[in-house]
């Protein structure tokens, strides 16, 4: 047994992300690790990669205790990690990237300096192993994604790894390039290297691996040999429990169209996106990370430009759009990145909550602020969102928990009285209780006459809240489901399984 994990647990604050994981890995074995976003895959791999230590439990490598305190320590023990976002320095050459952790040195009159000759020879050797015939002195920025991936693997091989972890390695590769990567993986397997392969692309997983491990909500729900799985059973295990009663019902009285988007195209991000949203309707957008959903709503809100197509808001063609205009029109946008784009972390709760609606509380030529009114209104909304806080004007928003921070951002947008609320991953990284409260707020808003466009990577959430789910892939809309057609396996299959077919 090469690698063994015993009852590994990991918590961030009060949130338990891994709830006791036990599994083992043999030499030359490829393990496919699958699970929905937030199931705990990345956390587990970060533990193995030495990014942070587990809260409880033991790890063994070759029978010895394995507890790396840094990525470099993990690498020297023989665990290499190929990240989803490649960790190469584009401004350096291939050879420099390969040896960035440890340059071979030679001494010249006692002064140590980098041994360029050895680097070149060794670099060629490593590149040969992954089937790259390139000048090692070429800058990485000149390479396209596929060779970059190979360079990354070559870099990992340089440290003589026993285990290589791949995190979504094919997302930026073409079909043909992915095939070549799989050949390489099989070759490495023959050399006795064990691999953990993380992917959303279930077809690839089935093609490549020996065993499949399925994570759900921080638990390893099933680990078995490949032959006992097919796509349907994998999807079923990934999604798991019935959760529909978790979502409060809502009075249905969908009205006429408020937003019509036609052939919206932003080069390199989205192509020919056409859909509409009706009054008091909740429309969900599902797809893989990078499918263009966030990019699409950023264009809608006026943060990014579009090249062609049209946006009609309440019967009027919009030719100019920016956040200021959007807020005036009654469109609000809760972004995915709470810290970077949603909060002013070093300011108090009041200032955060009032920011977007400040115009409502000012009067006169100098835009004098009515502090009393602002405070009362914020108090009202913060109360409605059930945020737990101590003091509105003294407490910094950064001292709140993730869920409460998100509620403050939501309160900020509710204060603008939006007619269309755009939500990008509104429940990402927050606990179940806060999630349920946010669902309640969304339903309330819709019952009071607003519409909601919601992006989420949690399909259950969309199925529970939405009247319609639109699936995006590679910047295009690939399918649309009405509430009566909601069937999680079908939707998942369109988003995951058909991914390769669309290519």
């Amino acid at each position, binding site marked *: 047994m090469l690698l063994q994990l015993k009852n590994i647990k990991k918590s961030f604050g009060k949130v338990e992300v891994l709830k006791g994981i036990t599994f083992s890995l043999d030499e030359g074995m490829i393990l496919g690790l699958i699970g929905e976003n937030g199931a705990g895959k990345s956390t587990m791999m970060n533990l193995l990669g030495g990014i942070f230590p587990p809260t409880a439990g033991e790890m063994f490598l070759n029978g010895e205790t394995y507890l790396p305190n840094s990525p470099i320590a993990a690498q020297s023990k023989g665990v290499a990690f190929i990240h989803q976002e490649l960790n190469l320095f584009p401004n350096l050459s291939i050879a420099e990237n390969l040896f960035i952790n440890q340059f071979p040195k030679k001494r010249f009159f006692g002064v140590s300096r980098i041994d360029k000759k050895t680097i070149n020879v060794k670099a060629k050797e490593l590149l040969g192993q992954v089937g790259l015939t390139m000048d090692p002195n070429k800058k990485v920025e000149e390479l396209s994604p596929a060779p970059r991936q190979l360079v990354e693997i070559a870099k990992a091989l340089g440290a003589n790894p026993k285990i290589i972890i791949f995190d979504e390695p094919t997302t930026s590769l073409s079909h043909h390039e992915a095939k070549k990567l799989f050949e390489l993986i099989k070759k490495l397997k023959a050399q006795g290297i064990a691999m953990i392969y993380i992917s959303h692309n279930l077809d690839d997983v089935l093609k490549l691996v020996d065993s499949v491990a399925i994570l759900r909500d921080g638990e390893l729900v099933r680990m078995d040999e490949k032959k006992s799985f097919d796509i349907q059973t994998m999807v079923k295990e990934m999604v798991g429990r019935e959760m529909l009663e978790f979502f409060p019902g809502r009075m249905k009285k969908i009205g006429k169209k408020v937003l019509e988007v036609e052939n919206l195209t932003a080069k390199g991000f989205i192509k020919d996106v056409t859909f509409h949203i009706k009054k008091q309707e909740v429309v969900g957008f599902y797809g893989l990370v990078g499918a263009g959903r966030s990019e699409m709503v950023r264009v809608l809100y006026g*943060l990014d430009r579009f090249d062609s197509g049209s946006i009609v808001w309440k019967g009027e063609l919009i030719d100019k759009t920016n956040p200021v205009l959007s807020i005036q029109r009654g469109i609000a946008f809760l972004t995915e990145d709470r810290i970077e*784009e949603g909060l002013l972390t070093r300011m108090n709760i009041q*200032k955060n909550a009032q*920011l*977007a609606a*400040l115009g409502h509380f000012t009067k006169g030529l*100098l835009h*004098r602020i009515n502090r009393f009114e602002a405070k009362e209104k914020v108090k009202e909304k913060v109360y409605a969102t059930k945020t737990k806080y101590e003091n509105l004007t003294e407490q910094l928003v950064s001292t709140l928990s993730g869920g409460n921070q998100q509620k403050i951002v939501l309160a900020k947008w509710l204060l603008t009285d939006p007619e269309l609320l755009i939500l990008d991953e509104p429940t990402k990284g927050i606990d179940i209780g806060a999630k349920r409260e946010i669902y309640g707020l969304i339903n309330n808003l819709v019952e009071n006459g607003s519409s909601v466009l919601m992006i989420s990577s949690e399909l259950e959430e969309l199925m529970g809240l939405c009247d319609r789910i639109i699936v995006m892939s590679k910047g295009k809309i690939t399918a649309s489901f009405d509430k009566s057609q909601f069937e999680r396996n079908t939707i998942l299959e369109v988003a995951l399984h058909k991914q390769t077919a669309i290519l």
Partner: protein
Amino acid sequence: MIESTANKLLGKSENTTVYVCVLYYFIMAIFVPGFFTIHNSWNLLFNLLPLLIVAIGQTYVMLGAGIDLSVTSIVAMTSIIGGYCLSDITAFIEPVWLRIVFSLGAMLLTGALIGLINGVSVAKLGMPAFMVTLTTMMLFSGTAIWLTRSQNSYMLPESFVNMPYTSLWFIPLPLLIGLVVVGIAYFLLNNTLYGEWLPSVGMNSKTAAISGVKVQSTTIWSYIICGCCAAVASILYTARLETGSPVMGQHILLDVIGSVVIGGTSLFGGVGKIQWTVIGAVFIIMLDNSLNLMGMSYFLIMIIKGLVILLAAMMNLLKEGKY
């Protein structure tokens, strides 16, 4: 009671600066002869006012996560414009007060214009504030000297050069001007939409933009305000020295930035108050004045002031939890 009022007025963490300031004042009053005299107190006040006014403008820029190194050149540039407008050339304009109003208006306009150039370069063209204002500092300092061929303009109208010694309602005019500037700056920052927008832009311009804040114009206005403040300070300097000089204010940059930093305005933008900068400026002026009275050389004073400001910057980071 006094403490709680002070707490309300100043917030909490920044009390240390006030205490240090008061303590320093008493120690100097006891141990440095000549510090605690009426003459020196006036001296302190008149040195403080123009510096404070420039520092208040700087506070606005730094709140927006920028920096304006060109303030000294704005002081110089507006000083020669004022000197030119007030000199014999405009003698035909009657009465004299109209001449003065016209000249002061020209000074303010010049300050605002340089601020506009800074602001547009930073906000619209996206250049780093440090680079832009370092360049405009050189540009306008050079222009001021080149335009005047390094000549000062004297011959300013009597009623203008008497301004520092004139009183209105028993308050010396410079003090009145200082109080008005502090008052306006405080009001704008604490009671208006702009006062909410500026720190939000400084703290996180992405969040601000998404929340409907007009980020670019907010930033541009902060530089315009800074330019106007420097122009007002230049009026005080020009009147007191009775000359329009192209090297006016060339040594005050460290004191200006020092006042803001010692006051406690964040080096990363988003957090800062007018009243903090007032305290910072008071401290810098006291430090400068007391060291002078102790008979230290200019260079030694520079060294000490530099160290104190560096320490203040470190405390600033400590407060933000950067260590």
